[in-house]
């Protein structure tokens, strides 16, 4: 009877997600795969001198396949499947079985992977021909410099005896050299090395990284002038110096991957340095409430905006970040009127370190539609220049960014692309605390795999490559400054979109 499970023990009905194929003619049994896998997939059996794999544990992160010196490993989605069923897909059946076995909310990481229409792929760009010369960015200046912050309606000058003096005092604006910023990713959610890599890259390229809600370690405050520091519902790591070393202070209301949901950093991840940065006891859960408990209304938000402005002597723009929900345009208008200098909107495809899968995959709207409706609403109310609009959630390449700016964004936050640049393969296991690439983990053995010198170089390369591509696209349109693209929907046409979609996006169909 000892071979049977105990009565109350449950046998798992799950199928493996990935197939691990090991080519015997190549494998030299060096055990690199075993050492690289934090999930414990690979093992070596000395008795039989063979490498084994526990496929149930494989997340498909490809770390072993990349590191295998003889390229003996192939990791691919497991071919075993249920009877094909358009309604009950493999994923739906597996999720259900998992819940029947655990009784829990399914957690996941990264952004929504569901096939909601990706509008970027239904928008094409314009280029100059004959009547308007294209501009060659290799030979002529092409300007991407962007300023984030509130803008005046007009400037006033005094003219005394031939001396021109600027009378208007500008609102605080932050200069960035490319309209691409790194999204909020907190120290705690990601490793110290990943966090530092983002800071180093932002500083080198002249753009900004975002601390997320986990504070800014003391020794990294030298990167403050390239930092957006968040003030979120948990108020972790918040003190006057934290705000005052920053370029921008951001109030985090919501996140695209989990609108209406707070955060939870489990106590085992709250190591000593994280506890010091977040200013909470070591080993305690870091819980971010779903709402900010001092913001139950727009007037409460305004109070916090001005409290932060007071705390920073009105020298820094204050940003408010929200998830794109159904009435995002009206909310954004309220935020602008509440005194924010920047509004960041995060779309349904925005990433996360951990979120309930059901929320990530079902709540929010695509960023493309949100940019268009927010920009249009602010213009109709005559207050578009009172705020900068940063879009986040779902950018995959530089063309997506050009389209976002033409729809009306001032700049974009990129999170997932930055992670991919550092090694992420979107295995969606960020919430497990195990990240074989050393990005989304606090395990010292794993996080030391990420060398900030090298990872920041990858990030700078990404910024450089995308910025150069943006310059190419601008030049092709006959534009030599990014501000002439902003809100320039004439440069966009829709392909395969319905009338209502074209209307929300405010663009014409191709051929029109």
């Amino acid at each position: 009877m000892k071979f049977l499970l105990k009565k109350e023990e449950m046998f798992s009905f799950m199928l493996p997600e990935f197939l691990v194929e090991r080519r015997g003619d190549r494998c030299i049994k060096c055990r690199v795969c075993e050492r690289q896998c934090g999930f414990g997939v690979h093992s070596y059996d000395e008795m039989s001198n063979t490498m084994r794999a526990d496929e149930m544990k494989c997340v498909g992160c490809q770390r072993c396949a990349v590191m295998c010196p003889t390229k003996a490993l192939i990791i691919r989605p497991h071919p075993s499947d249920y009877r094909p069923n358009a309604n009950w897909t493999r994923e739906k059946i597996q999720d259900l079985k998992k819940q029947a076995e655990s009784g829990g909310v399914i957690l996941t990481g990264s952004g929504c992977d569901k096939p909601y229409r990706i509008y970027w792929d239904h928008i094409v760009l314009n280029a100059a021909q004959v009547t308007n010369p294209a501009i060659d960015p290799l030979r002529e200046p092409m300007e991407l410099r962007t300023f984030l912050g509130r803008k005046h309606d007009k400037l006033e000058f005094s003219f005394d005896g031939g001396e021109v003096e600027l009378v208007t005092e500008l609102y605080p604006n932050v200069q960035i050299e490319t309209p691409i910023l790194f999204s909020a990713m907190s120290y705690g959610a990601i490793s110290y090395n990943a966090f530092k890599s983002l800071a180093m890259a932002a500083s080198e390229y002249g753009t900004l990284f975002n601390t997320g809600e986990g504070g800014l370690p003391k020794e990294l405050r030298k990167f403050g002038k390239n930092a957006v520091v968040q003030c979120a519902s948990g108020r972790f790591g918040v003190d006057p110096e934290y705000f005052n070393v920053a370029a921008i202070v951001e109030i985090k209301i919501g996140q695209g991957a989990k609108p209406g949901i707070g955060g939870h950093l489990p106590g085992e991840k709250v190591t000593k340095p994280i506890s010091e940065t977040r200013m909470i006891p070591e080993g305690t859960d870091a819980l971010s409430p779903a709402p900010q408990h001092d913001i139950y209304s727009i007037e409460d938000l305004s109070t916090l905006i001005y409290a932060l402005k007071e705390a920073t002597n009105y020298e820094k723009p204050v940003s408010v970040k929200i998830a794109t929900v159904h009435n995002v345009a009206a909310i954004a208008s309220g935020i602008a009127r509440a005194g924010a200098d920047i509004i960041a909107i995060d779309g349904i495809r925005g990433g996360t370190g951990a979120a309930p899968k059901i929320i990530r995959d079902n709540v929010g709207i695509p960023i493309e539609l949100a940019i268009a409706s927010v920009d249009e609403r602010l213009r109709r109310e005559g207050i578009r220049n009172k705020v900068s609009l940063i879009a986040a959630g779902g950018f995959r390449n530089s063309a997506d960014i050009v389209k976002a700016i033409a729809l009306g964004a001032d700049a974009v936050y990129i999170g997932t692309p930055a992670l991919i640049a550092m090694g992420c393969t979107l295995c969606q296991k960020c919430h497990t605390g195990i990240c074989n690439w050393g990005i989304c983990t606090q395990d010292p053995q794993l996080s030391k795999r990420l060398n900030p010198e090298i990872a920041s170089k990858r990030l700078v390369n990404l910024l450089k490559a995308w910025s150069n591509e943006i310059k190419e696209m601008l030049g092709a349109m006959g534009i030599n400054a990014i501000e002439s693209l902003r809100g320039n929907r004439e440069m966009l046409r829709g392909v395969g979109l319905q009338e209502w979609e074209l209307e929300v996006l405010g663009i014409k169909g191709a051929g029109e």
Partner: protein
Amino acid sequence: MRGFEKVHDACGLFGVIDRSGSRFDSDMVVTAMKNMKVRGNGLGGGFAAYGIYPDFKDYYALHVMLETPEVRKDVESFLEKNFDVVNAEEIPTNSEANVFRPPVFWRYFVMPKNDEGDDYVVSKVMEINTKIDGAYVISSGKNMGVFKGVGFPEDIAEFFLLHEYRGYMWIGHSRFPTNTPGWWGGAHPFNILDWSVVHNGEISSYGTNKRYLEMRGYFCTLLTDTEVMAYAVDLLMRKQGLPIEIVAKILAPPMWDQIGRMDEKSKKIYTALRITYAPLLINGPWTIIVARHGEMFGITDRIRLRPITSGEKGDLFFVSSEEAAIRAVCGELDRVYTPMGGEPVVGRLYKFEKAERRSQRGEVFA
């Protein structure tokens, strides 16, 4: 949508002012435009003349284009309701002229009711243009008027019997649209109050400029990108009171590299201008001539993708797409000057060149 939202243009431009204020006929401007025939294709020509209605100089002169004769009563009842109309007449035309399907033009000399001023006139012009189908106010300044349509400039001049008018400043335009609604309202100059603009180019920032101006209450109805120029200039110069020298740096700002090399004071001013007025940077290839009472300026885009040249002879100041056109009407010139991209060339009445006016330019923009 009544046609294309935007028309691609090449074009020839010319402007002349007698800085002493003496008035002269249309001879020079028509001859100059003829000289640049190759820059147009007969699908649009037009003129703005300043100082032509001295008898009614205190009244707004509305030139109204009526696509059908019936629409006139709608226009007139609208005008009666909102203005005191002191004179109304059909603009005399020559039916023999070689032009394409001319509409009817009327002019009304009006004064807003209740002492309302320029903003009121602008809003009423916008109302006619957007709400009365088939009626467009093509000029609305005092003591000036715009004459334009589909045809070569010399044919338009003949159609409107232009030689019968005398003004102290004239600007002209010959159009080479690459696609065209064949529409009279789409010809240049574009005008609002006494601001007139002629334009050669294609504005690649059109969408950005247009949407910014819409936020400020200007609605583009005349189906061409030149309109944004006219409204931008009206917003910056009339409503915000900025001098030409500053406006030039908004429409065609220096590169950040150049700004980086300036002294601290200039750097601060130029940076503030670029931050604040970024949506009014006019990108792409363009040259414009902008006129209002007393002055006229020409400017080309920041990287000088379209031509512009100026010339002077005695009291006369010229600006044109080509030096040849200036030489065609004035063979001997005291000075010929070809400005850099973004650098305005300005012709002003001497009486406007007073000390306070000069001081407005300031050394930063000299």
